[in-house]
């Protein structure tokens, strides 16, 4: 997993609540057996005017000029502002994969759906939760000001606005540690292999029916 320490990035505002993972990456692209290449299909149904299928040449498809990701001023954005319950719906990890592949490294919003939130951390995409009033203000500033950027410092747990105001955010220590160091969860867990074996052996005695088949 790629490390996340600091990020100074252009911000794109996605002003909708309940953005679901079907919208983030529509199901036809889930047929891929790879982990990469989902970026061109991020928000496919909102981003393009035609219907997308895997294997198309996306550079030739008609773009929806009104969709925020297509506005020239947001080209190259690496931070996305979001609203309530972002990432609800299916467990598809293709959603964070598509966001990352597109170039988004951090999300700033009021709330994220549980599974999506978890999937982000597994891939080095940082979801930041802030109070509604602060997010409202970020939306206001970002739409008002071209080239709006934020500075994120994971170690210090801060988001710094262009006007210098510093917003603090919470992150669970263990997740933070893994993200800062780009640690692979499986490797970390396997340090406890003996404990897992011990637990399993006890379970086998107490509930042998769980190990029957």
């Amino acid at each position, binding site marked *: 997993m790629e490390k996340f320490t600091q990020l100074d990035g252009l911000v794109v505002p996605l002003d*909708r*609540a*309940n953005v*679901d993972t*079907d*919208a983030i990456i*529509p*199901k*036809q692209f*889930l*047929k*891929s*057996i*790879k*982990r990469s290449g989902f970026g061109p299909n991020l928000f496919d*149904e909102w981003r393009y005017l035609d*219907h997308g299928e*895997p*294997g198309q040449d996306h550079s030739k498809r008609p773009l929806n000029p009104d969709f925020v990701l297509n506005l020239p001023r947001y080209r190259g954005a690496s931070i996305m502002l979001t*609203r*309530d*319950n972002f990432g*609800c*719906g*299916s*467990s*598809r*990890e293709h959603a*964070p994969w598509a966001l990352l592949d597109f170039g988004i490294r951090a999300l700033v919003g009021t*709330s994220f*759906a*549980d*599974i999506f939130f*978890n*999937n982000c951390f*597994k*891939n080095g995409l940082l979801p930041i939760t802030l109070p509604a009033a602060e997010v409202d203000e970020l939306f206001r500033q970002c739409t008002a000001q071209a080239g709006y950027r934020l500075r994120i410092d994971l170690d210090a747990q801060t988001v710094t606005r262009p006007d210098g105001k510093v917003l603090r955010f919470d992150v*669970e*220590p*263990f*997740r933070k540690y893994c993200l800062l160091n780009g640690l692979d*969860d*499986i490797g970390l*867990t*396997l340090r*406890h*292999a003996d*404990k*897992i074996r011990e*637990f*399993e052996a006890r*379970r086998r005695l107490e*509930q*042998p*029916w*769980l*190990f*029957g*088949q």
Partner: protein
Amino acid sequence: MGAQTLYDKLWSSHIVHQEEDGTVLLYIDRHLVHEVTSPQAFEGLKLAGRRPWRLGANLAVADHNVPTTDRANGIDDPVSRLQVETLDRNCEEFGITEFRMNDVRQGIVHVIGPEQGATLPGMTVVCGDSHTSTHGAFACLAFGIGTSEVEHVLATQTLLAKKAKSMLVRVEGPLQKGVSAKDVILAVIGKIGTAGGTGYAIEFGGSTIRALSMEGRMTLCNMAIEAGARSGMVAVDDTTIDYIKGRPFAPAGEQWERAVAYWRTLKSDEGARFDRVVELDAARIEPQVTWGTSPEMVTAIDGMVPDPALESDPVRREGMERALQYMGLVPRTPITAVGVDKVFIGSCTNSRIEDLRAAAAVVKGRQVAGNVKLAMVVPGSGLVKAQAEQEGLDRIFRAAGFEWREPGCSMCLAMNADRLEPGERCASTSNRNFEGRQGPGGRTHLVSPEMAAAAAIAGHFVDVRNML
């Protein structure tokens, strides 16, 4: 230790290790695998030179991409075919039990787990699919995971997790005739919203829930995720135990007695404290129909399409306006005036034998309306299909003009050939009415199997209570 909730018990009995910040290494008893979210996990395993930790914990099936029509020639779409073949290959290579596409035990992953007795009380059950919450009906801690976690479970038989808050949804009293578990859960979501359960594990309790069959409880827990909760659960009682008895993966003999004795402890203790309690009166729950593009956009059958102008919160108002535009609906239209083009009875929410029986009871001796282009029934598994055929349900559906299909996810998410055309309106027993879910531009209304059947007959939404 004081009074514990069911969730407390399930959680604490699976802790292998705990970090200082409360992050827990949780032991996983059952891992269900399907073709869409597993290929990258198997690839990761291979790249790292790892093997599955405990083969017997895994059970695999292809469901999302499989065709529901003639399967003799395999899968037409080459991309879908490759994904299913990749699952077959991975299971073969690693030695994981898989029900292949033409096995009678094949079906939707959340239908076959319980059907096989592979889902047992007290287990932790995970799957790379958000509707894994379904299995909580058996007093399991069951939740959906992403692909990195699929790899993590394969490699270590554990997951890193943080304990959620607890919510009790208590429903009391008898349900009206024609009102089912689907209506209960839609009413719950209508009440608390699609983010209402975020950060919580929900336990469903109360006399209404205790009176539900296992099928009904699965429908309920299935949609806990639509209320934002990663898991939903119901305590063990006789209904649970009777359902499990004799299933292929269930214990037998002396082990059965031991297991049952343990399972009977899987309920919240008297006086256990929940972080939030939500109460519903069953008598006041009416048949539900969603009108928008989120399951919380729901109303009773005698209701109307709401008017966004009356909504004071601007973000919500805009969401409603966008939903109505997508759905092609005008504010204040009575729900019963909304016609349907297609009807889909299926999905891991409502494709079990009881669902098919309930729908067939409405359909029997009647005809699908002329304006309905397609009405289809997709059983949840090969075994559900066989059972239904034995009971003659297929003949009832066919005689009425329904299509009777092979098991799979089908038009729940339209990854196979079954889908809505742009603008088509569907009465669907599935769980998500998101934009494009059943096909680009398709318009989904979530309902119970009874209500879907009634809509097929009438050609528009109707109150099934008047048809029983």
